[in-house]
């Protein structure tokens, strides 16, 4: 595997710039970009988890200091996340042995990026149209009247002012844990909307709490991947991290100059472009039909 340190650093910086600008983790862009750059998908995914720790740590720390973090909710999500991560790491190994890991990663990316990208694009275009017309009064979210309120094993979360069943909390955490280990993402793009729309968590604690969970799930996933599949590459991760944190600073400055809905529309277009690129890889006739894998290593 021969790669250029400066290219990797640049990739880290670009993804960092985007994540700073849009306020997202960027794992869902980083892993595909690494794969496009011919890093083996297994290494890209595991190293992605390692890199996410750095970007989520400073964010989670800031939210913790400001008190915009529901620790109890975060821990419950984390418990689910660890279970999901363990499942994911074993699934990862099984898929790799069966030779279907790369395919699974690609399909998951197409499905998730396609769905999220489309939803975000529709939502932001609507928002842009509305701001051009008259400003409608925002509809308040219906209070706790969905199927989730009917579930048992309820628990009180003071910080979020919620009385909620632990089942969807653990379930959501678990889903994100699986995604972390198979896709090399933090999972914020699934977690944040799910917390807002399904669990009805107040928006001021959503980001801090999800960052808390993402950080610890990434820590757990990194250790699990390193000890089970030996696919974490510290050197690669550090190059990406350093590029990422620097890029994020400039991204955050650039982000302040754009309107929220414009930012979301732009991000949606980037997400859809990556989705189409991966999707094309699945349906286009491959140049090389055969591939080799050596038992026990890469």
């Amino acid at each position, binding site marked *: *595997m*021969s790669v250029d340190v400066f290219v990797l650093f640049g990739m880290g910086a670009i993804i960092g710039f985007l994540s700073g600008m849009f306020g997202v983790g960027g794992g869902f862009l980083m892993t595909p970009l690494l794969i496009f750059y011919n890093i083996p998908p297994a290494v890209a995914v595991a190293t992605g988890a*390692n*890199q996410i*720790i*750095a*970007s*989520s*740590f*400073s964010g989670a*720390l*800031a939210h913790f200091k400001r008190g915009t973090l529901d620790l109890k909710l975060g821990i419950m999500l984390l418990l689910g996340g660890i279970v999901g991560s363990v499942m994911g790491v074993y699934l990862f190994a099984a898929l790799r042995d069966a*030779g*279907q890991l790369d*395919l699974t990663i690609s*399909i998951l990316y197409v499905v998730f990026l396609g769905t999220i990208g489309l939803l975000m694009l529709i939502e932001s275009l609507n928002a842009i149209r509305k701001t051009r017309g008259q400003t409608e009064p925002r509809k308040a979210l219906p209070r706790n009247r969905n199927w989730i309120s009917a579930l048992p094993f309820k628990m009180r979360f003071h910080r979020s002012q919620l009385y909620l069943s632990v089942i969807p909390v653990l379930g959501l955490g678990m889903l994100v844990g699986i995604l972390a280990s198979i896709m090399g993402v933090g999972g914020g793009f699934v977690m944040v909307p799910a917390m807002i729309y399904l669990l009805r968590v107040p928006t001021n604690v959503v980001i801090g709490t999800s960052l808390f969970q993402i950080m610890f799930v990434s*820590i757990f996933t*990194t*250790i*699990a*991947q*390193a*000890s*089970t599949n*030996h696919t*974490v*590459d*510290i*050197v690669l*991760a*550090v190059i990406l*991290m*350093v590029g990422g*944190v620097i890029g*994020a*600073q400039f991204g955050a400055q650039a982000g302040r100059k754009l309107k929220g809905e414009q930012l979301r529309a732009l991000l949606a277009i980037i997400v859809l472009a990556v989705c189409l690129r991966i999707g094309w890889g*699945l*349906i*286009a*006739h*491959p140049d*090389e*039909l*055969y*591939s*080799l*894998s*050596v*038992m*026990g*290593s890469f």
Partner: protein
Amino acid sequence: MRPFVFIAILFTTLFASALQVSGQVQTNIQIGLSSDVVEITSSFDGTSTVIFGSIENGNRELLKEGRYDVVVILIGPKVRTIVRRRERKFGIWLNGSSLSFADVPSSYSVATTRPLNDIAQSSEIKMLEIGLDNLNGVSVTSGFMFKKTETFRKSLQRLKVKQNLYLENIGGIEFLSPTLFKAKLTVPANVPIGKHTARAFLFRDGKFISSKFTEMRVKKIGFEQYTYDLANRNGLLYGIIAVLVAIATGWIASLVFRKD
């Protein structure tokens, strides 16, 4: 029966002593590596290794006429290798049938004095497993037809050549004197770590007469070796270090770019 056995023994003895009288000692080949360890650093970009050798007790006339041929091979650690073929299903390309080969040399670099089919009969070359076409990793997936197995074997070879791991250097052996030769073998940038074997084969007039082998180690050194060993032997510790490094980076970043 008895007289026949006696005659047979008599003939053998006579024949053997006749050989000794004419000074015919076993002709053989000797080799030595320029270095028996190849060290991989982070800037390693491939190298070449020189193998020196000599033909001992060769026939003077034949040596002068250059009727001896030499083949030198550097073989990487043998590993089980899976060959997969992508097939189109439900409109997408996914890994379909696969075939597992046991004992596939992870790298294979061969240097010869002449093209292999000029050196000896192809059956002899095949028996000695010399040359890319004669590498016979045993297929271990059962139920495969011979033809399909051969297709997969060919693909394995083709991909290894494409990855620069299988190399053939016809004419890569240079005679410095009638008995002394030098083989230059390429060690690619992605050379597998581990114990490699150098083999030398001596042929005379199209007949195999002697072979020798020696070992060469390829290892990572310095930081490369340290991280490689740690990642593979103590993954847990490696993971913990990876986490600490990431936290430190995140923490330093939040100090450097503090928004006050």
